[in-house]
C-alpha cells in the first residue's frame, strides 16, 4: 500500500532512492508511444523480455517501456542507458543481438543511425534529428515509463509542486508565470499568466481548471505524446495552476480516439491520489484538488474552449459567443481556467528553473520552446521541439532531413485546418506566434505538413474545406454556408469547369467568414483559401483557364497513358485495374480507355519498374480553345 508523500524532502529522498536502484543496472528502454506501437513495439518488448530471461540477466538489465521519443519515422526506438546508445527501426529479429551486446557492454552497430557518409552515430542526442532541437517538454519522455509514478519522481517529478505549496503564495505563482511570458500553446497564444490572474480575480465559486487535450488537428499529435508519454508532468502543472487560481476541481478532456493516452492519464491520476498528490490535503499543505477524466466523442469543434465546456456539461459541443470568456464565466457559468496540454506541461519547468530561464529561450515576444509535428513529404517525420524563433528552413531541412525522394519543396502548411500555407520564398521566417500570423497563416497548435511538387494546392485547400465543413457545428450562417459554397466552387474548378469570377468570389466569401463567424473555426477557415490564392494563384488559373492540374492530382484533369515504346505487354496493369479499363494483346503494348478509367493509379503502381511505361498526363483529354489570359508567373502551360 503506497504511503502518502508529505513534503518536498520526502520527494527528494524518494528520488534518490529510485535513482540508486538503477545505478548498478543497465536499462534497455523501448518506445511505447502509439506510433511505435503501430510498428509492433509491443511484440519487440515481449521478445526482449523473453530474451533477457533466457540469458538469466534479470538482475543486470532492467527493461522499460517509455513514452514517445518523437523520431517516429524510424520507430521502434530502443535506447540503452546510461550510455544513451540509440537503436532505430528495431524488429523482433534484432532482439538477440541487442540483448547479447548489452550484456557484454558492447554496441550493436548495425542498428545505429548512419549519416550520409555511413559513419555511425551512437548517442540519441547526437543524431541530426535531435541535435538541432532543444528538448524541454519532451525531454523526459525517453527516460521514464509513463505508467510509473515512481519513475517520474525519480527524475525530480512533483518537486516543483512541493516547492509551490510550501514556499509560494498563489499570487507569486501567477507573477512567475506572467514574468516568464508563457503563451497558450493550443493555438491562441494568449498570455497564460494574464488568464490565470483574471480567473483568480473573477467572482464565483467553485472554480474549475481544465486540461484541453482534444487535439483535433489532423496531422498533429504533440499533445498525445505529452499526455501519453509523461502524464504526470501535465498533472503537476495542472495542480500548480489550480492552486494559483484557487480551484478545487479539475477535468482532463481527452479524445476518445487516443485509447493509450486515456489509459495512461487515468492511471496517472490513480497513482497520484495514492501518494496524496491529488485529493484532500495535498502534500500536507491544506490544499484540496481532484481531477476527473472526460473523453471526447469525435467532434473536432469540441476542442474550441466554449464547446469543450458544453461537452463536459453533457450538452452538444457547440461553441457559444465570447465574451463572456471562460475565465469569468465558464463551466456551469463559474470561473474556469482552461489551457492546452503543452501549456500545462511547461509550468513545472518554469517553476523549477525560473521565469528568467524561460525567457532566455525563444524570442522577445514568444518565450520558451514549441513542439511541432513535422509530417508529410519530409524524410524525418516526427515530433520536433525547438525554441521559438528557429526558421522553417532549419526545421524542414536540418531537422527534417529535406524532402522525401529528392523532390522539390513546394509549401508547408502550418496550424492545422485553421492555418495557411507558406511558400518557398518565405522559408526563412522565424517561427513564433506573431510572425506567422503576419504572413497570413498561424502557428496554431503546431501541425506542420510539408508538401512537394506532387501536391496540388487546389486539391489540398478543398481537402481542408471539406474537413471544416464536416466538423462545423452549423450554428452560424457565415461558416455553415460559406464553407459549403466555397466547396462547390472548388469542386467545379477541380473538374475543369472553373469560371473567371470564381477567384473573386472566393476572396469575398473569405472576407465575410473572417468578419462574421461565431467562433475561431469559421474565422480561421479562410486562411488556407487566402494564402493559396496569394502564393499559388497561377495554379488556380491553370485549372480554370487551361484545365491543367500542374501537380497532376485532380482526377478529372489527368489521364493515365501507357507509353507504347516502353510497354512490354506483360499484363500486370490489366490485373490491377479495378474497372477493366486496360486492353491489349499479350506482349503487345496495351492501352487505357480514358472514359472508363477512374484514375486510381493502381496500374502505375503495378507496372514493373524496369518498364515504367505508365505515366500521368494533364491537359491532354480536356484542353479546349479558350481565350488565353496572361498568367502571373510564366509557367509552361503546354500539355505536360
Amino acid at each position, binding site marked *: 500500500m503506497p504511503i502518502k508523500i508529505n513534503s518536498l524532502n520526502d520527494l527528494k529522498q524518494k528520488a534518490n532512492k529510485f535513482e540508486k536502484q538503477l545505478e548498478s543496472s543497465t536499462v534497455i528502454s523501448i518506445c511505447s508511444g502509439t506510433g511505435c506501437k503501430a510498428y509492433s513495439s509491443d511484440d519487440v518488448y515481449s521478445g526482449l523480455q523473453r530474451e533477457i530471461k533466457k540469458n538469466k540477466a534479470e538482475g543486470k538489465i532492467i527493461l522499460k517501456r517509455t513514452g514517445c521519443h518523437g523520431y517516429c519515422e524510424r520507430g521502434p526506438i530502443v535506447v540503452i542507458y546510461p550510455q544513451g546508445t540509440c537503436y532505430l527501426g528495431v524488429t523482433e529479429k534484432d532482439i538477440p543481438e541487442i540483448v547479447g551486446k548489452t550484456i557484454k557492454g558492447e554496441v550493436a552497430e548495425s542498428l545505429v543511425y548512419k549519416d550520409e557518409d555511413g559513419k555511425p552515430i551512437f548517442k540519441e542526442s547526437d543524431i541530426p534529428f535531435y541535435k538541432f532541437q532543444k528538448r524541454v517538454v519532451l525531454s523526459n519522455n525517453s527516460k521514464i515509463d509513463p505508467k510509473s509514478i515512481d519513475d517520474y519522481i525519480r527524475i525530480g517529478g512533483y518537486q516543483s509542486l512541493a516547492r509551490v505549496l510550501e514556499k509560494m503564495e498563489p499570487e507569486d505563482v501567477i507573477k512567475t508565470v506572467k514574468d516568464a511570458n508563457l503563451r497558450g500553446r493550443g493555438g491562441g497564444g494568449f498570455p497564460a499568466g494574464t488568464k490565470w490572474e483574471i480567473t483568480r480575480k473573477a467572482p464565483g465559486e467553485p472554480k474549475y481548471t481544465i486540461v484541453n487535450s482534444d487535439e483535433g488537428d489532423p*496531422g498533429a499529435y504533440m499533445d498525445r505524446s505529452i499526455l501519453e508519454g509523461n502524464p504526470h508532468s501535465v498533472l503537476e502543472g495542472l495542480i500548480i495552476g489550480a492552486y494559483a487560481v484557487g480551484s478545487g476541481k479539475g477535468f482532463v478532456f481527452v479524445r476518445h480516439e487516443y485509447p493509450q493516452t486515456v489509459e495512461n492519464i487515468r492511471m496517472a491520476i490513480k497513482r497520484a491520489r495514492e501518494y496524496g498528490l491529488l485529493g484532500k490535503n495535498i502534500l500536507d499543505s491544506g490544499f484540496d484538488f481532484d481531477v476527473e477524466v472526460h*473523453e*471526447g*466523442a469525435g*467532434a473536432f469543434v469540441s476542442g474550441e474552449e466554449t464547446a469543450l465546456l458544453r461537452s463536459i456539461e453533457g450538452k452538444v*459541443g457547440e461553441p457559444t459567443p465570447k465574451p463572456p470568456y471562460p475565465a469569468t464565466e465558464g463551466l456551469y457559468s463559474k470561473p474556469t481556467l482552461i489551457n492546452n496540454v503543452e501549456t500545462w506541461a511547461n509550468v513545472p519547468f518554469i517553476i523549477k528553473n525560473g521565469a528568467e530561464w524561460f525567457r532566455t529561450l525563444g524570442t522577445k515576444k514568444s518565450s520558451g520552446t514549441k513542439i511541432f509535428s513535422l509530417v508529410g513529404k519530409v524524410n524525418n517525420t*516526427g515530433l520536433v521541439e525547438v525554441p521559438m524563433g528557429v526558421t522553417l528552413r532549419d526545421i524542414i531541412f536540418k531537422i527534417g532531413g529535406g524532402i522525401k525522394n529528392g523532390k522539390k519543396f513546394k509549401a508547408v502548411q502550418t496550424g492545422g485546418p485553421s492555418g495557411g500555407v507558406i511558400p518557398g520564398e518565405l522559408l526563412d521566417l522565424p517561427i513564433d506566434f506573431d510572425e506567422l500570423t503576419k504572413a497570413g497563416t498561424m502557428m496554431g497548435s503546431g501541425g506542420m505538413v510539408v508538401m512537394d511538387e506532387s501536391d496540388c494546392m487546389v486539391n489540398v485547400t478543398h*481537402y481542408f474545406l471539406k474537413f471544416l465543413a464536416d466538423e462545423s457545428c452549423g450554428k452560424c450562417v457565415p461558416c455553415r454556408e460559406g464553407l459549403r459554397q466555397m466547396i462547390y466552387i472548388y469542386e467545379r474548378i477541380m473538374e475543369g469547369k472553373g469560371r473567371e469570377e470564381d477567384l473573386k468570389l472566393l476572396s469575398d466569401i473569405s472576407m465575410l467568414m473572417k468578419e462574421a463567424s461565431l467562433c475561431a473555426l469559421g474565422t480561421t477557415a479562410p486562411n488556407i483559401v487566402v494564402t493559396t490564392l496569394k502564393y499559388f494563384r497561377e495554379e488556380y488559373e491553370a485549372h480554370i483557364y487551361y484545365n491543367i492540374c500542374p501537380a497532376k492530382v485532380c482526377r478529372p484533369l489527368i489521364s493515365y497513358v501507357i507509353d507504347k515504346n516502353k510497354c512490354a505487354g506483360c499484363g500486370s496493369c490489366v490485373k490491377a485495374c479495378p474497372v477493366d479499363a486496360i486492353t491489349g494483346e499479350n506482349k503487345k503494348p496495351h492501352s487505357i480507355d480514358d472514359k472508363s478509367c477512374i484514375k*486510381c*493509379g493502381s496500374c502505375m503502381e503495378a507496372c514493373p519498374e524496369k518498364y515504367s511505361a505508365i505515366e500521368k498526363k494533364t491537359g491532354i483529354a480536356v484542353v479546349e480553345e479558350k481565350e488565353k489570359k496572361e498568367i502571373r508567373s510564366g509557367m509552361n502551360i503546354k500539355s505536360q
Partner: protein
Amino acid sequence: MENNTNIQTYLQRIKKRGFRLTKTRTIVLDTLLENQKELTAGELFFLSHKKYSKIGMATIYRNIKLLEEESLIKRAGFDEGKAKYRIRTGWGPTRKKSDPEPVKSKLVKSSGQIKTTDILMGNTNPRGTGGSYRDVERINIIQGQLNGWLNDLNEIKEKKELELEDVIKDFGTVDKIINNHDNQKSNLIQMLLDVQNEYRWLPKHILLYIGSKLDISLTDIYGITTFYKYFNLEPIGKHSIIVCMGTACHVRGAMNLLQRIVNILGVKPGDTTGDYKFTLDTVNCLGCCALGPVMMIDNKYFSNPSTGKLKKILNRF
C-alpha cells in the same frame, strides 16, 4: 383491487372516448387487469411479451405514455427508482354527460377474469356502434399515429434487435454504467461512450432506458448521438476498418488506399458489408503520421497495404 363494476365502467370509457384498442394495447391493458399489483415497465414488457411476441420494449414505453395521457393508467409509486403503473380507477369529469350503463354480468367468465375483447365483441355500448363525428376524427388521428409507430417497430426489428433475454440483461448492464457515472445527467456522453464500447452501437431500447432513468428526453439524447461522430445508431460489423484521412496521410495517398479498400469490399465509407463482417469508416487523424497512409482494423495498424496484401489481410479476419 377493482370490483367488477369498475372494470366495466373502465372499459366503457375506453370505447366512448373513441380510443381505438389495437391488439398490442389490448394485451397491455389485459396484463395490467390480470395482475393484482402495480407493474413496472420491465415487468409489463416481460408478461406482455409472453402473450404476444411481437411486442418490443419500445412499444411498451410508447403505449404506457399514450395510456397515461389518456388517463387510462397511472403511475403508482416507485420500485427502486423504476415507475410502476396500474389501471386508473378514479375518474375526473368525462366528456359525455350521461353515465355509461353497467355491463350485464353474464359477460363475466367463470374464472372471474374479464377480457376487453369480450366486451367489445358484445354490443355493450348503449349508444350503439359507430360514434359521433369527433370520435371518428380521433380514431383516424390515433390510427395514423399507430401506423407510424408500427413502422418504427418494424424498422427496429429489421435492424437485428436483440432477443428478449438479452434485453432484460441489458438493463442490468446499463444500470451499472449509469451508477459508475454517479447518475449525473452531465455525464451522459461518458455513459454513452461506455454503452457503445460494450455493444459496438447504441440500441434504441437502451437509449430509451437511459432517458427514462435520467429524465432526459429522447430528442436530447439523439441530439448528442447525432452530433458526436463516434456514436453509431445502427448495428455495425464485427470488425471495424478505419482509414486515416488526416493531412499527412492525405498527401501520402490516403485516397488511393481508400479506393483500393472500397474496390475489394464493395461498400462506401460509413457502410457495413452485407455479411456484417466489416464496417468501413474514415477518421481525421490516427496520430501515426510516419506510417501514412494508415489503415486500422480493430486495433491493428497497417501501413499502405497494396491490393494483394489487403486481400490477404481481410481474409485473416
